[in-house]
């Protein structure tokens, strides 16, 4: 069976899409059981992870020749859900513009909890998000598939920075500030409780 080595920006959705599979066929393949147990989330993999690709098979559908038939291929749909906060408060109802590298532009308003939810192509890797009215806009560049697993130092760092713990000078101080805010033991080390709280606060 072929293997796919995860590169930056990859996730099971994009890998499955690239090789012509449904994401469930790849993620639930017995050869990927170990990876599944390790990462738990199909869309947060680490560059260097190895994903086994199932064997491709042919599928036959029998239909009569005396009629017109319609066949629909199932494809991978990806969702992008993000919460925008200003000083820990939802940026509720703010207008947004999600510009995808593919050229698609999605417009709307954040909901009352500051959430944006859009369907995006599984293989889009970059985009730009603009939130707020014309006279008070916030802009981010987005790297889809760039979030590392929470059990890696880089994954912890990414989540802390994006949660607003970005004014501290180093990783340990950031972790301590996060622990202080959430009434955890201020050790500066990522223990199980800190990791769980970080996961809850970030959303994954």
């Amino acid at each position, binding site marked *: 069976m072929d293997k796919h080595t995860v590169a930056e920006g990859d996730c099971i959705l994009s890998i499955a899409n690239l090789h012509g599979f449904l994401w469930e066929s790849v993620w639930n393949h017995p050869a990927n059981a170990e990876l599944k147990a390790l990462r738990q989330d199909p869309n947060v993999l680490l560059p260097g992870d190895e994903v086994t690709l199932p064997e491709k098979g042919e599928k036959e559908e029998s239909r009569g020749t005396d009629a017109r038939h319609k066949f629909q291929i199932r494809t991978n749909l990806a969702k992008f*859900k993000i919460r925008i906060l200003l000083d820990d408060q939802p940026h509720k109802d703010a207008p947004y513009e999600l510009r995808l590298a593919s050229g698609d532009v999605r417009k709307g308003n954040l909901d009352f909890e500051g959430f944006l939810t859009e369907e995006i192509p599984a293989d889009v890797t970059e985009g730009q998000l603009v939130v707020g009215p014309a006279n008070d806009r916030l802009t981010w560049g987005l790297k889809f598939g760039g979030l590392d697993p929470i059990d890696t130092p880089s994954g912890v760092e990414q989540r802390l920075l994006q949660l607003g713990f970005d004014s501290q000078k180093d990783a340990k101080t950031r972790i301590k500030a996060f622990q202080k805010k959430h009434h955890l033991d201020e050790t500066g080390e990522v223990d199980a409780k800190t990791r769980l709280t970080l996961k809850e606060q970030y959303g994954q």
Partner: protein
Amino acid sequence: MARANVARQVVGSPNFNTLNTRIAVIRFQKAPGEIHAARKITGLEFRVEAQGDVIQQGTSADGVIKMRVRGESSDLLLLFGGQVVARYEVSIALEELDETLLTHGLQQHLRALGYHIGHGGPAKDGVIDVPAEPTPPTPPPPPKPQENALDFERSVLDFQIDQSDDGQAIVPNGDPTGVTTARISREADI
């Protein structure tokens, strides 16, 4: 441009990403002292830059800017006719200004309120009575209380006059109610 690493989700997943931006509320006014309609700066055009990118721009109706701060610091640029007329580097510290019961805390608050307290002290910002670090690698030079005593005294006097207090230029350390220090603290707590 600030780059956020985010995850895609499969349809039906309860997971999500989060982007949180810190805010510093900064008030610009025409003169130090209380918030007063006559001191407001209307139509204050501004721009915020972080790591070389514009992350926010707008116009404040009353001189109050809720500035977004990303990373260790962001730059707040005030504009007039589209031209940059002032630039401030703003960072958010975990610690707040020190208490006004301490001399250097009082000096920090007066300075934040816009009173002129001279240029003494290690940071040349008029805050002279800075406590030593717990374990300094090299001991800092001893503070010089007389260094900007006149400026400090004058700023306290100005503040008291603004507050319609008795203009004695004396900080009532022995005053059990701590009226003056409490007021300075409240005013600076924007």
